[in-house]
């Protein structure tokens, strides 16, 4: 009886989940199909689900218009450097702010918080001026270094670090740990979840970052994917078939990584309660 009830219940749950899945997957299917449509098909009304003729010519057209592979590599280099660098520096800063005692600590924390309320457009020009002074226009440094520091990441981690019981730290001290020992052996292993979250957050933010890479780079060799994708958005109507072909090429490697690493990702989800 109970088993039947649960089957019934799970039937509803599955229907709900299935609807959710369809909603989520719809844009991807649309993107996939549109990437194979001709110019005429993509604008036809009423919209056509399937291309009337499947064409592969959008892909070479995209590659001809923007150096896609180069943009892709740049995106990977820039985003992973920022993610690693920013998370590492934020852990150090957050630990100092959460646990150490030094004069001006509150003032520093408030200053950090105040950087969060500043919209990016306001800091864009001053930041550009600094980067220019360093001679970093059109370089990887110019794309990476300004984002190694983030008030949000530090504050986010600090808020978690203060909740870790002090006793654990004391125990480590008795065992002879210094500051770094405590950080690496006590704080970090206990903060896998927030560190994972912030890494993902930083990665996504910078993977799709557009304005800064556009402003700070000039040569095609230094540009990133979002700048490349924007090239297909036109005043007076976007060429959606090309845009979708480009987007498809942009996500396929990420999808492959996901499929290969899926088991590990799911494992870490169950371990940390984090959603990827």
């Amino acid at each position, binding site marked *: 009886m109970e088993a039947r009830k649960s089957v019934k219940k799970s039937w509803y749950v599955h229907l709900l989940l299935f609807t959710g899945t369809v909603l989520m997957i719809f844009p991807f299917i649309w993107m996939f199909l549109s990437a194979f449509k001709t110019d005429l098909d993509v604008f036809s*009304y009423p919209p056509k689900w399937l291309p009337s003729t499947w064409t592969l010519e959008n892909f070479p057209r995209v590659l001809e*218009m923007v150096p896609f592979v180069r943009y892709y590599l740049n995106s990977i280099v820039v985003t992973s450097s920022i993610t690693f660098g920013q998370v590492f520096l934020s852990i150090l800063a957050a630990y100092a702010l959460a646990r150490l005692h030094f004069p001006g600590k509150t003032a520093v924390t408030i200053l950090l918080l105040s950087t969060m309320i500043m919209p990016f*457009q306001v800091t864009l020009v001053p930041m550009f001026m600094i980067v220019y002074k360093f001679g970093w226009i059109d370089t990887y440094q110019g794309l990476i270094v300004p984002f190694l520091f983030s008030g949000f990441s530090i504050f986010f981690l600090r808020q978690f670090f203060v909740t870790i019981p002090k006793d654990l730290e004391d125990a480590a001290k008795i065992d002879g740990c210094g500051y770094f020992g405590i950080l690496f052996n006590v704080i970090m292993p206990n903060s896998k979840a927030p560190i994972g979250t912030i890494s993902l957050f930083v990665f996504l933010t910078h993977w799709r970052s557009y304005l800064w890479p*556009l402003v700070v780079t*000039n040569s095609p060799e230094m540009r990133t994917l979002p700048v490349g994708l924007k090239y*297909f958005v*036109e005043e007076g*109507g976007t*060429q959606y078939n090309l845009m979708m072909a480009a987007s498809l090429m942009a996500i396929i490697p990420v999808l492959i990584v996901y499929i290969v690493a899926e088991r590990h990702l799911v494992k870490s989800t169950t371990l940390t309660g984090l959603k990827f």
Partner: protein
Amino acid sequence: MRRCFAVKRFLLVALVVFLTITALSVEIVFWYPLSGSKGQVFKELVARFEKVYPDVKVKLVYTGKYSDTAQKVVSALATKSLPNGGIIPAGPIFTGAYGNYKILEYIESDSEFNMSDFYEVGWDYAKYKGKICAIPYNISTPVLIYNKELMAEAGLDPSKPPETWAELLEYAKKITKDLNDDGEPDVWGLNIKDTPWIFKAMLFQNDCGIIDSNTLTPLFDGPKGVEAATFWKKLVDEKAMPVGMHNLADKQFMSGTLGFYMGSSSRIGKWSGKLPFEVGVAFLPKMVKRAIPIGGAVLVLFPHSKAEDDAVWKLIKWLVSPENLGEFCIMTGYIPIRKSVLEVPKVRKFMEENPNYRVAFEQMKYGRAYWHFEQMGTMDALLYEYLDKIERGVLTPEEAMKEAAEKLRKEIES
């Protein structure tokens, strides 16, 4: 033996020529905000320029859409790292406003450059405080695009699009239809994509200035401006045009549920012959006279060394030569800003084959523009906001025009 000598001499000359070209060649950096197929057309044109002038090497930099390009220019101005030139939206604000009128020196000193061949309105669009500081290039104008089938269904003659706004109102009302009797029309007579742009057309057409160029005083709150705003309200009240649905105008037209569409001439190429119904294009209707506000971006020169500036001028002059400009316009759908472009055989043939384009190309003679000023963007944003308030009945047309002008005045004074 003699032959061998001739070959040697030829090789030597070739070497000298090659070395001179290499030694004298200049590299210039040129920014452009054209993406997709338009960007490709521009890149090809510049590649051809480099073939014709091997002594100039052009490094093209794509700078995103208009607003992104403006951001990039602002950053470059702050660090004095400007390119040599570019296609820049609101160019005069980044040249003339900073005392850079270099391009005017070239225009005046180059006897080959025929200024009077350009439409006067183009020059107005390239001025800051009354002085030329750019050259108009990728310009579009608003046009009236209409669905011939819907016109015929409403008992109208598709070969006679409305000539005046009064006619437009009358025709549009006939087209508006409620198909499912829910009290909300499903087919609309008229919709306007870019409301501030078309409203400025109405103002010009009603003989109303938009802004006094010398004192920067808004002029649209006078009786003629209010009259235009009142007509706008009438379009909504009499159900010729939907309230606040302007963003949907393109979709409505493409799905065949919109009779008249007003918007950029760049839609002509996108729609003509590509939609399941026949598309017509006409001049914007007139009020007391014809007038078309133009929009787009301009060619600018940021001074560097003499050699580099000369090279930029060479490129600019080449880009706006009637043949090249004609080709650019045919391929992109932008409107030629030189009269002689219409005489180029290729352009003539194109206009014969695409009568819809002829309309846009020919209405340039009615073009109107005001000199650039810093608060142009604010003005458009205010007009957008207050037209919306008029449509929704939040303010009367008179109150709205007064308030918008007052806000703009304050912004200019500060």
